[in-house]
């Protein structure tokens, strides 16, 4: 009930934000902060003695004859991502105070959060799909109304890509539904029942090889688009570049989260049983994504674009972790998948930090290009430090959250694919090199005097970004905070 309460409150907040006349930013910030606090309280209350499975399970039947009901349930996976989306949305809304956006902007931002929360707590495929789609609309509007150059084209591209992905998701869901109907002569859209191991082993593998491929293809396609992964990523550079910074934060932190969530909440239970045939393909796709995006990022001079590719590159780890999880068993599999889930969390937090600092830099200097911005440490020491911290976390510096995730995945990978991890390491080296290069150009070196005298971030901004950095740091030195419960959840899935 608690989580449903938060969800309804969030819905109310979104409506309020659309309606207020004055001070939209302040109200939205307070609202999103409140949601973050409530989510944290919920996590403490329900997940301190978590032993796997789902908490807050409830179900409100809509139409039992074809298995539609509004069912909720929160696993450790959803919990981690609920926390992540609450943080990301709060940061995005907070930093947007630099440019005063109007009330519809905040209404749309909170609507996105409503969609995310709904997606993460739904345990019925129909509602899963409805929320999955409902997230696209506000993000589309945010890009197409508030974006910069080429916003309409970028928004349309984003929408069409994700929409094509979504329709395949729908087809796959319907296929599962119809399998279940033929198998048990009753109809349900309950995710627990449709992703049940016994059902999948018995009725999906054997009789219908074609449908199995169809099913896996649909799910993969839609989740890979959202992540985004090679070769379905071409909406990414346009959308990130054209979107206003707060929306870029949402794209990097929360939209890519959806792909990862789909991987572990929907695909993992299926592929753990029948996916061994495609596991290698997934791993190779992940490695290729990692290296490819890293190489592309290396040649960017625009910092925002570069970090957009960096974000996509680190999502490559998630594909790798899923593939390893399928191929291995026992502790190695748990390690790989836990690492993957932790990576979604870490990646979202780190990208929020990076993009927020970049936003402040862009807003102060008027440029986000490596060619004009240089030597910022002299004029904006604090924000530069935050950017440095974010970048270091992003390249996987030990002691910060990103390292835990990448280390788990690489460790587990070695057990399964042996020295092929060399390619993963190679990708990580490229990642490190362009991250360092970016820092070197923009933060160190001689100050570009053309930029004039600059103001560092405000006290509030420093406070909020410190808070974000502390989360990243804490997760880096004391990962058990989330790691343990995710591990318990993953154990239950296999």
């Amino acid at each position, binding site marked *: 009930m608690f989580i449903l309460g938060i969800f309804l409150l969030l819905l109310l907040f979104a409506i309020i934000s659309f309606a207020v006349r004055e001070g939209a930013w302040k109200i939205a910030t307070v609202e999103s902060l409140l949601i973050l606090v409530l989510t944290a309280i919920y996590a403490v209350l329900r997940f301190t003695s978590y032993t796997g499975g789902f908490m807050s399970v409830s179900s409100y039947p*809509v*139409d039992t*004859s*074809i298995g*539609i009901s509004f069912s909720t349930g929160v696993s450790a996976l959803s919990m981690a991502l609920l926390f992540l989306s609450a943080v990301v949305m709060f940061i995005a809304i907070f930093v947007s105070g630099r440019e005063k956006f109007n009330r*519809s902007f905040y209404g749309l931002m909170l609507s996105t959060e409503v969609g995310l929360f709904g997606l993460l707590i739904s345990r019925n495929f*129909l509602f899963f*799909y*409805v929320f999955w*789609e*409902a997230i*696209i*609309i506000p993000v*589309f*509007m945010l890009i*197409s*109304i508030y974006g910069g150059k080429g916003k*309409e084209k970028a*928004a*349309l591209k984003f*929408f*069409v890509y994700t*929409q*094509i992905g979504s*329709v*395949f998701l*729908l*087809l796959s869901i*319907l*296929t599962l*539904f*119809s399998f279940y*109907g033929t198998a048990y002569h009753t*109809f349900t859209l309950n995710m627990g029942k449709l992703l049940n191991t016994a059902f999948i082993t018995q009725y999906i593998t054997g009789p219908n090889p074609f*449908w199995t491929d*169809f099913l896996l293809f649909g799910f993969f396609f839609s989740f890979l688009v959202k992540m985004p992964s090679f070769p379905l990523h071409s909406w990414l550079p346009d959308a990130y570049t054209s979107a206003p910074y707060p929306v870029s934060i949402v794209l990097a932190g929360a939209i890519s989260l959806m792909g990862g969530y789909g991987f572990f909440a929907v695909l993992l239970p299926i592929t753990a049983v029948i996916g061994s045939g495609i596991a290698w393909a997934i791993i190779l796709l992940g490695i290729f994504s990692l290296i490819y995006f890293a190489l592309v990022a290396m040649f960017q001079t625009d910092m925002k674009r570069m970090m957009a590719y960096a974000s996509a590159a680190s999502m490559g780890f998630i594909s790798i972790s899923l593939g390893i999880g399928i191929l291995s068993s026992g502790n190695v599999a748990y390690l790989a998948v836990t690492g993957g889930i932790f990576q979604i969390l870490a990646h979202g937090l780190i990208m929020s930090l990076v993009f927020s600092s970049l936003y402040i830099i862009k807003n102060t200097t008027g440029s986000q290009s490596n060619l004009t911005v240089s030597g910022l440490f002299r004029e904006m020491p604090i924000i530069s430090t935050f950017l440095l911290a974010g970048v270091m976390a992003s390249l996987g510096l030990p002691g910060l959250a990103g390292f835990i995730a990448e280390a788990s995945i690489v460790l587990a990978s070695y057990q399964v694919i042996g020295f092929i991890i060399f390619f993963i390491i190679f990708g990580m080296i490229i990642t490190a090199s362009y991250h360092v290069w970016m820092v070197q150009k923009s933060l160190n070196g001689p100050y570009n005097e053309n930029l004039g005298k600059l103001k560092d971030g405000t006290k509030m901004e420093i406070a909020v970004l410190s808070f974000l950095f502390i989360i990243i740091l804490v997760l880096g030195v004391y990962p058990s905070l989330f790691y343990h419960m995710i591990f318990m959840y993953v154990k239950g899935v296999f």
Partner: protein
Amino acid sequence: MNNIFLNQYLTVMYPEIFLGLVAFGMLLMGKRYHDWKVYTGISIISLLIAMILLLLLDAGNETFYGGAFQINNFGLYFALIMIVSSLYVALSAGTVLKDNPEVFFATFLFVNIAMIIAAFSLNLIFIFIAFEGVSVGTYILSAYGKSRRNLEASAKYFFTGIIATGFIVLGSSYYYMATGTFNLISGVPEKGAMLIALVLLFVGFGFKLALVPMQQWAVDAYDGTSNPVSAFLSSGTKVLAFFILLRVFLVGFSHFYNDVFYLFVIVSIITMTYGNFAALSENNLKRMLAYSSIAQAGYLILVIAVVSGSSSTFAFTVAIFAAMYYSIVYIFMKGGSFLSVSAVNKDKVEINDLEGIGVKSPLFAVSLAILMLSLAGIPPTAGFFAKYYLFLSLISGNLWWLAVIGILNSAISVFYYLRVITVMFRKNDSHEFNLGSSVMLPLVTAAILTIGLSLLIFAYPQLSSIVGGLGVVR
């Protein structure tokens, strides 16, 4: 039975008789009263009364006139939603059509009579008469207006329409040749004549639904007529044509499902693909909407493909439920978007003319955006749920490839629907808009209903229990 008014052959016709009397009364009033408000009021009230009369009918699957006419809940459902669509259009028609309102509204009521009859007919002759009633009425309605464009549109519609009529008559006679009866429920007929009848009737009835290759009239007619009439042509009469297709091809050709299946699959794929691609490159708003309704017709007839192509009872039930769901949602999303064109005071409205309306009236922009999203089939709008049941029926009928084609098409359609949304939120102060209540009221109503009808998923048990009323024996 001594009392002629209680004769059951007459009582089943009370709603029709009532509407007819009102319509004639209106024509008589025309000499004295010229205010459109009076006629709008009368039409709305009499349509409401007709709805009540319909609900009072005993929907006990009883047949009349030698099996030609059957009152059942399924027909009742369609009769009611067609009247709802007329009500919806009537609300906004008067303000646009100021001269001779009595002729317009009387014709409108005549069309409704024909619609009600069609909803209960199980006989080709009845269906033909009802269909012609609607056609002739809409020829008059589409000519309504002073400009040359209206007349041109109407003439085009009329001339192509009577050719379609010819096909129906010829097809019906072949049908009679094969079965020896005009009733749709018949014994096992002779194959050769039946296939000729299938093609001829398909051309005739498919014309009204604007299926490719009988689609071009629709684009010109919708474009040329006044907005309320195009709204009506594309909502109420579309639903009627769809209902007739369901009845004629699923009941009348139940022994030739294989042929029906192939015919409709091919036409459906061509129709939706054509509609979507033509709409992609169209800049004129009304023509774009017209192409989009061609594409929507392609989705609609997927229902016929499912029912004829799969033997699963579940797929059948869901498919017919999808047809019922789609029809009611379609009325509001399509009707509403055609009526919203009135916001721009121009003859030929380009999509770009909507620039800046998002700033002037966010309510208008959001409402039209909801309709567009619903047409594109994106949740949480009712358009999505209708499509959801449609694709569900395809998948459970093992027609996955058809579902893929349909779904890819709906992904393409997103392009042009979203274009309208993007354009509305552009900044541009130079355009003037007509945002009076005659535009806003129907649009906002449609938007609210488009969201609200999502709740129709709760009614699945009730509505799916009446699908047998279609007349298909399973």
